[in-house]
């Protein structure tokens, strides 16, 4: 898919996120919006994934370690026609397959594993990667993490293991929007220098602008060419990206805009598409 098309998909995904969160009445807009290009670039260009058969054994695997950002994943899966766009309206409602955090047991096509408790995804991804290697299969594994999540110790257990086992089929993506619930990451519990940390753990590290499709595209391509070590893509992003009143504000981690502000957001995104 061309970058111009990826941008249109991203705009639609942003609108889906805002609309479904408005209907849900709760959820996490900031960290969903910051990850849009990272997830769209993956599913619409780089991942081997069959929306008609999401359990296809030749698929690449995606683990949303920052489970609270599931609106972006749900929107992308719906845009790929894994299920209907209408089902996005059921987010967080009783009986829905679209739980507040991804739930494998609800059998929504495309959800590999339940996530939401932070710090778990990288181990899960490393386990799938080892499984693929031992089964002599070429499937790739992508794990999208938050940057606040890097404060969890289990991430570093997994980071050590992925390097030890030379998991070059594993790509960790850090949505580096710089904010967590209690404020700026650097003030709460600084994770920097993050790239150096991953490098010193033996990873191939790529630092990119997570909203620039040229860079996102190139990073995923470089991951696929890297041998003998896992890749970490540290993507600088903006929390609440694309909606002016949300950008870079911690308060939009888990707040739902009013009806008027939703309208304003949708108009802003429409203006961007027309550009």
């Amino acid at each position: 898919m061309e970058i111009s098309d990826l941008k249109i998909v991203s705009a639609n995904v942003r609108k889906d996120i805002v609309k479904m969160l408005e209907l849900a009445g709760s959820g996490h807009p900031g960290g969903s919006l910051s990850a849009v290009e990272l997830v769209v670039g993956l599913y619409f260009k780089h991942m081997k994934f069959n929306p008609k058969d999401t359990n296809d054994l030749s698929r690449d695997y995606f683990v949303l370690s920052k489970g609270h950002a599931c609106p972006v994943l749900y929107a992308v899966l719906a845009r790929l026609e894994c299920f209907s766009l209408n089902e996005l309206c059921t987010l967080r409602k009783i009986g829905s397959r679209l739980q507040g955090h991804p739930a494998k047991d609800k059998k929504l096509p495309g959800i590999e594993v339940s996530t939401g408790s932070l710090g778990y995804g990288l181990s899960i991804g490393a386990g799938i990667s080892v499984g693929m290697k031992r089964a002599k299969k070429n499937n790739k594994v992508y794990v999208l993490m938050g940057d606040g999540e890097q404060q969890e110790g289990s991430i570093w257990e997994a980071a050590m293991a992925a390097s030890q086992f030379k998991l070059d089929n594993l790509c960790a993506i850090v949505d580096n929007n710089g904010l967590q619930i209690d404020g700026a990451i650097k003030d709460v519990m600084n994770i920097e220098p993050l790239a150096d940390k991953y490098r010193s753990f033996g990873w191939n590290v790529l630092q990119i602008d997570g909203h620039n499709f040229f860079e996102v595209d190139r990073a995923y391509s470089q991951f696929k060419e890297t041998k003998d070590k896992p890749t970490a893509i540290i993507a600088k992003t903006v929390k609440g990206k694309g909606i002016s009143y949300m950008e870079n504000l911690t308060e939009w981690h888990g707040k739902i805009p009013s009806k008027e502000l939703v309208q304003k957001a949708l108009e802003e995104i429409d203006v961007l598409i027309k550009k």
Partner: protein
Amino acid sequence: MVEVFGKKATRFGFGESLIELGKENSKIFVLGADTASSVAINIFRDMFPDRFLNVGIAETNLLGMAAGLAIAGFIPFVATYGVFAAGRPWEQIRTTICYSNLNVKIGGSHSGLMVGSDGATHQALEEIAIIRCLPRIKIIVPCDFIETKKAVIASAYVDGPVYIRYGRENTPIFTNDNSPFEIGRANILREGNDVAIMACGTMVYEALMAAELLGKKEIEARVINIHTIKPIDEKIIISAAKECGAIVTAEEHQIYGGLGSAVAEVLVKNYPVPVEMVAINDTFGESGNPMDLMVKYGLRDVNIAKAVQKVLKRK
């Protein structure tokens, strides 16, 4: 007399059955956390290096990677000391494995006081309680070496998470290859209608010995091996309550939340009868010779027999 066919630690039953499974099923994968030899998965490691992984001293990653291997289509068995297999990665077991209903089998070795001289830090006495409250997982506490082998084989062929609790020390072998074993179905090892003793793990042998002691006093005790704590065999418990009228539970585990609690839950809802519980009485263990500890903490046949006499007075 209780017939005994030698002594062997249940951990070796765990390890040996994994080798059998490894030979017959290429999906069997074993993960360890630096304790391969002490939890008896070292032979599997040496025979099937392509299906073994040592993650080092990192138990949250141990369970997380096992979850990933299950997603990748393998049947992963993890094994380490029970404290580290159930305690530290409890949330991975809950949120990643049980909530996703992943096919991960967890071996919790070094259960109970019988760990001995390492002391309380390494004596797992709480796993049944903290694992039992999780939806979807099954818990098996086999009574001897032979039953541990059967439990491991059976768990490989049942879909979804299973926790198997086993031990380090040599303990009597008193079941044989023909003894029945089915997950979720308890076994009556001795008939009797005066009282029922329900035990799991190492305490099953003590229960049989206790029944011998009681027999001399003309008290006929039914002994039931509740090897599966979850799902628990409600039918056999209710029948015993109706036919015996009093129950004693026995486990090498904390008194809160373990087998005794599980049996009591069934009884209060269906057929309440007096119950006494032989278990660790809300305290930590300590260093010492395993059998000395069992005596000090009241986990021997005589303690069960005493509990029986107490419960009979309440009948």
